[in-house]
């Protein structure tokens, strides 16, 4: 520690440069494309676009979530509050024997509060945390006997002060924010105002709040290594912290930063303030600076990587509770790796660093590692169970900024968890979180104006819904309308929006005409199943479930009539898909694919599409034969019955009549088998043919984004040429205009490039998710199919066993 503080003065310019550089370059850093940076780039975008889209409906979600936040916040509040009280005595005890430690511990004791704030993040976070951070500086100087530490502590105290300054500087933003956030606890009116606040306000608000949070957790984390007693609550916090799992993204950045600039940061204790202020003004990329600085701060204090990790986690909790959603949305999902990497690398590094700082940390270094291990282990292990809790915690926090934030928040969670956890847990999630069933198809109206209405029942444990079960009535076009809305909103972002079954004029006409024959009943049942699977896919999609339209569809009693779907008949739908496919193939030729992965995937998707179509045709023919078998069995049963009735020999006659009954039962078995084939394979394969269309659609959207980017680049190129010409022609008045245009187009190019990257990342993730789901779904279907097959076979055995004595009794 002493060494670090001694070294502190010189390298400030370096780091500042870097910071400034970072912030200036913002999204344009093509050169060194870390994953982390990609994330950030994309991170900053979504709020813009998504908030736009979801601002008005955002009010409702907040209403919905009104009750929840209070509970959730109570819990964290109580926990951390008690933990500091424990930690304080402990730190006092420690402070007496060890001067070195006093400051640290004091810091630490305060920091829990901070962390509490960070945890609470949602509601009062902004305000509380400023207060808390004000406390920190006041307390710290009092407890400062140690010479060695004065510098450090000052630096620390200043850091908080800076935060305070920060808070002041960005007063409006945080207050906006706090209003928004308080919307969860306060009447919705406030929330509304907050949400209605201008986008700019939001943008700024998120950034400063991030700053605050980011800094706070840094200090929080210090308590972790030192005080054992707090460990548990902390761990709880960590594991409870909704987006804790998402930490990987920021952590990646921090790790990078740490490794690259760590030494600079160590030696730069006080300049943080000056470094920060530029950041503040450059909101475009607050995260990077944030992470850099807090890191520096942590590094100054204990130089332990572990702390940083923890800070990262808590920070992530804080950060992501605000802008977490959008951030993680575009996260290319390598979380598990990062996590494990960190887990692995950090443990040794802790030890090494702690030995370096043996004076201060040496005693605790072992515990630190333990704690850390425990923390991570618990994080990864408990996460499934805590999932709900976390989500509960996550939801309120997210709901405040905007529902779009919420929309994107939960999605990365499962994504991260998927990587971190076993599949079962996923299934748990799948099966228990939300179940949608479509039941009781009913024909409403007469003649050609008739339509089918279905009961849509939802069973859920998700806190975002008002009740656990609810049922609404929806007609077919409503389902199509939902798809329209979803694909319009999420399609361009690269999401694979599950498609509903096509309109079938033939099938529906039969139903309308009122023929109560088996084919129309079969049609209705098939469609009902398809609609159910479609809805279940939608709600299983972590992003789509968050969409207000989905919730409205599931919950609201009356839905405005979907109009546009009228035109979307079966043929039209197919045409649309074909068109998209054509467009994709055309564009692939034009696009020199930089990413082999996409090229391969596209080919795979095409091949899979072919295969599935073939499979579908084969299964359908199998089903036809099964139905034929059931018919033939029925007529055989009939003729056996006739034969039995005509037979003179009583025993034979009896046996034949019995046989007729057995055959009748077998007919039912064959019929069930046909239905089983249909619903286990034919329909599922049909679903996947549709889904593959959607996958191709998402590729198409990526292609479009690429096109936009390329077009913008071409325009930019032209503008530059014009500028060169003007420059040569020496026309300063026009030159100014040209320069402005260039700036404008440069921004656009970066914007479009980022869009493209983001869409690419999303598509990639979606395709991976799709494949995972596909494999899982098929396995599940097959198991189900086999079970029913086995059951019917056992039934068959029973029938034969019952018949055998009858046959033997003849003679």
């Amino acid at each position, binding site marked *: 520690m002493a060494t670090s503080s001694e070294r502190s003065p010189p390298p400030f310019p370096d780091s500042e440069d870097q910071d400034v550089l970072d912030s200036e370059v913002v999204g344009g850093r093509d050169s060194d494309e870390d994953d982390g940076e990609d994330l950030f780039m994309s991170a900053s975008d979504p709020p813009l676009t998504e908030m736009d889209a979801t601002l008005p409906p955002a009010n409702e979600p907040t209403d919905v979530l009104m009750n929840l936040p209070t509970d959730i916040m109570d819990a964290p509040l109580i926990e951390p509050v008690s933990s500091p009280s424990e930690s304080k005595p402990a730190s006092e005890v420690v402070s007496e024997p060890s001067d070195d430690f006093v400051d640290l511990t004091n810091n630490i004791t305060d920091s829990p509060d901070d962390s509490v704030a960070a945890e609470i993040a949602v509601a009062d976070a902004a305000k509380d945390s400023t207060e808390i951070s004000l406390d920190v500086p006041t307390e710290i100087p009092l407890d400062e006997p140690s010479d060695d530490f004065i510098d450090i502590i000052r630096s620390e105290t200043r850091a908080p002060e800076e935060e305070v300054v920060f808070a002041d500087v960005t007063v409006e933003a945080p207050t906006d924010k706090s209003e928004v956030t308080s919307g969860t606890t306060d009447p919705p009116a406030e929330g509304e105002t907050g949400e209605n606040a201008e986008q700019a306000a939001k943008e700024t608000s998120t950034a400063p709040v991030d700053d605050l949070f980011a800094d706070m957790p840094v200090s929080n984390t210090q308590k972790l290594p030192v005080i054992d007693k707090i460990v548990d609550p902390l761990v709880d916090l960590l594991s409870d912290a909704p987006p804790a799992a998402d930490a990987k993204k920021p952590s990646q950045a921090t790790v990078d930063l740490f490794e690259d600039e760590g030494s600079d940061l160590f030696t730069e204790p006080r300049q943080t303030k000056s470094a920060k202020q530029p950041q503040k003004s450059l909101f475009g990329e607050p995260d990077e600076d944030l992470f850099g600085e807090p890191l520096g701060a942590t590094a100054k204090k204990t130089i332990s990587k572990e702390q940083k990790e923890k800070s990262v986690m808590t920070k992530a909790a804080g950060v992501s509770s605000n802008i977490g959603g959008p951030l993680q949305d575009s996260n290319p999902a390598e979380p598990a790796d990062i996590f494990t990497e960190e887990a692995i690398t950090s443990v040794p590094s802790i030890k090494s660093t702690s030995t370096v700082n043996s004076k201060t940390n040496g005693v605790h270094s072992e515990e630190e590692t333990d704690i850390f291990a425990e923390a991570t282990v618990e994080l990864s292990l408990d996460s499934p169970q805590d999932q709900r809790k976390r989500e509960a915690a996550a939801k309120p926090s997210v709901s405040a900024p905007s529902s779009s934030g919420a929309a994107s928040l939960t999605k990365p969670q499962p994504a991260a968890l998927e990587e971190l956890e076993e599949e079962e847990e996923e299934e748990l999630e799948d099966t228990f979180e939300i179940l949608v069933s479509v039941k009781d198809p009913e024909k409403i109206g007469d003649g050609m104006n008739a339509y089918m209405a279905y009961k849509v029942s939802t069973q859920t444990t998700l806190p975002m819904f008002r009740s656990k079960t609810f049922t609404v009535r929806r007609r077919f076009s409503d389902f199509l309308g939902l798809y329209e809305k979803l694909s319009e909103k999420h399609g361009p972002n690269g999401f694979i929006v599950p498609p509903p079954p096509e309109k079938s004029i033939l099938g529906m006409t039969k139903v309308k005409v009122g023929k109560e024959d088996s084919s129309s009943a079969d049609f209705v049942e098939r469609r009902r199943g398809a609609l159910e699977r479609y809805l279940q896919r939608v709600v299983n999609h972590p992003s789509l479930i968050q969409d207000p339209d989905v919730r409205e569809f599931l919950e609201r009693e009356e839905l405005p009539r979907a109009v546009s779907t009228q035109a979307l008949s079966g043929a039209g739908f197919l045409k649309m898909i074909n068109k998209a496919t054509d467009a994709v193939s055309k564009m692939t030729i034009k696009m020199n694919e930089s990413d082999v992965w996409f090229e391969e995937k596209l080919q795979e998707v095409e091949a899979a599409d072919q295969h599935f179509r073939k499979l579908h045709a*084969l299964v359908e023919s199998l089903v036809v034969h099964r139905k034929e078998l059931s018919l033939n069995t029925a007529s*055989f049963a009939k003729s056996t019955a006739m034969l039995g009735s005509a037979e003179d020999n009583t025993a034979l006659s009896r046996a034949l009549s019995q046989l007729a009954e057995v055959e009748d039962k077998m007919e039912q078995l064959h019929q069930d088998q046909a239905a089983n084939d249909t619903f286990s394979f034919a329909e599922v394969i049909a679903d996947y043919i549709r889904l593959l269309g959607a996958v191709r659609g998402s590729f198409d959207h990526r292609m479009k984004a690429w096109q936009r980017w390329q077009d913008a680049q071409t325009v930019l190129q032209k503008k530059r040429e014009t500028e060169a010409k003007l420059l040569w022609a020496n026309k300063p008045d026009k030159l100014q205009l040209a320069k402005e245009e260039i700036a404008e187009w440069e921004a656009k190019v970066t914007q479009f490039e980022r869009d493209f990257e983001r869409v690419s990342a999303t598509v990639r993730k979606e395709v991976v998710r799709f494949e995972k789901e596909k494999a899982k779904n098929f396995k599940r279907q097959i198991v189900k199919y086999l079970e029913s097959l086995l059951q019917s076979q056992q039934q068959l055995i029973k029938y034969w066993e019952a018949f055998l004595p009858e*046959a033997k009794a*003849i003679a």
Partner: protein
Amino acid sequence: MMEEVKEVTSILSVHGQNVKVTEVLKDGDTLTFLIVSQKLSGTGEYHVDRTYDDFEWLQQHLFSQDDEPGIQGVIFPPLPAKAQVNASAKVVKQLGFLALGEWQPYCKALEIFLRQIATHSILSRNKAVEIFLTSSEPPGRQRVRKNIFNRLSQAVEGMRKEGHKDVDEFFQTERDHNLVLTGYTKTAAERFLDVVLTEQKIAVACGHFSAALRLCVEAGEDPDKQAFSKACVKLSELFESMKKNITSVAENNVNTLGLGLDLESRYQEAEKEMLFRRTCKLVELETARRNAERAKPVKKAAMEEVKKATETEFKHICGVAKQEISRFQGARVEMLQQALVQWCEKQLLTARQNADQFNQHLQVFRGMA
């Protein structure tokens, strides 16, 4: 009759029960059947090869035993229709179950035909049977004359005589009953054939699906892809075994109840023919009686002679027919019972095997998680 039965055993030099049609050889368009029968006199076996023409030769010889009293009262074991290598749709329809597979059901039907003849008390006494079963020379290569039992003539006369009122209530009942049963049995056999054919179609469809599934295997290191590919392969295996299962179900159907119903249906036809022959004779007798009554004194004696002869013949026929009918009733019930029991047992076995296999597959899939 009983004495005759004892005589029978001594006439044939082979065990009638053990006649087997073991093989079928395709030689161009003709099918040659290998017939194996065990010698009574010890351990040797006769191996002869016979074509369908030889079978027809045998049948004709049996039909035309004019010296045997009451031969027309015999229910002749029915010879299956002629099988052709590239059979037309019509022939296939006529053959029914016998056209399935690689002629195994057909061989089985021929085997049953031969056994029925070789164990028949009257028919087995015919020299032709011995020749057919033991002579190394194929007997039937030269065409035999069509005899009175020509089916064509039957069909023409049938229209007229079928409805003829019987003098004997037993035969009247039997005729009515036979008429009903013939129709129903035929329908049942046809329906059952439909079932079997559909099962075969399903087997083919399962095979196609299984093959197509194998094409869905995706290369790649990705665990999800591998899981999917593995699922595809396993599912393909499942459908392959389903194909086998349904194939064996269809085979069971053919080899037990299918053949049984087919035989029953043909035997009912044979009984119908016998009853018809008797009816013809009855008509003949009635005509003779009328003629004798109305005859001028000059011709009276001759007419009485004819009447007497016809009466004796008719009596013989009725005697044989009654025996044959009661024998047939017993035999067909036993045959049908056997068919049903075997059928049931085989299907039960197959179903159990199926269940076992499905269970194994299910375990595999559950284990794949």
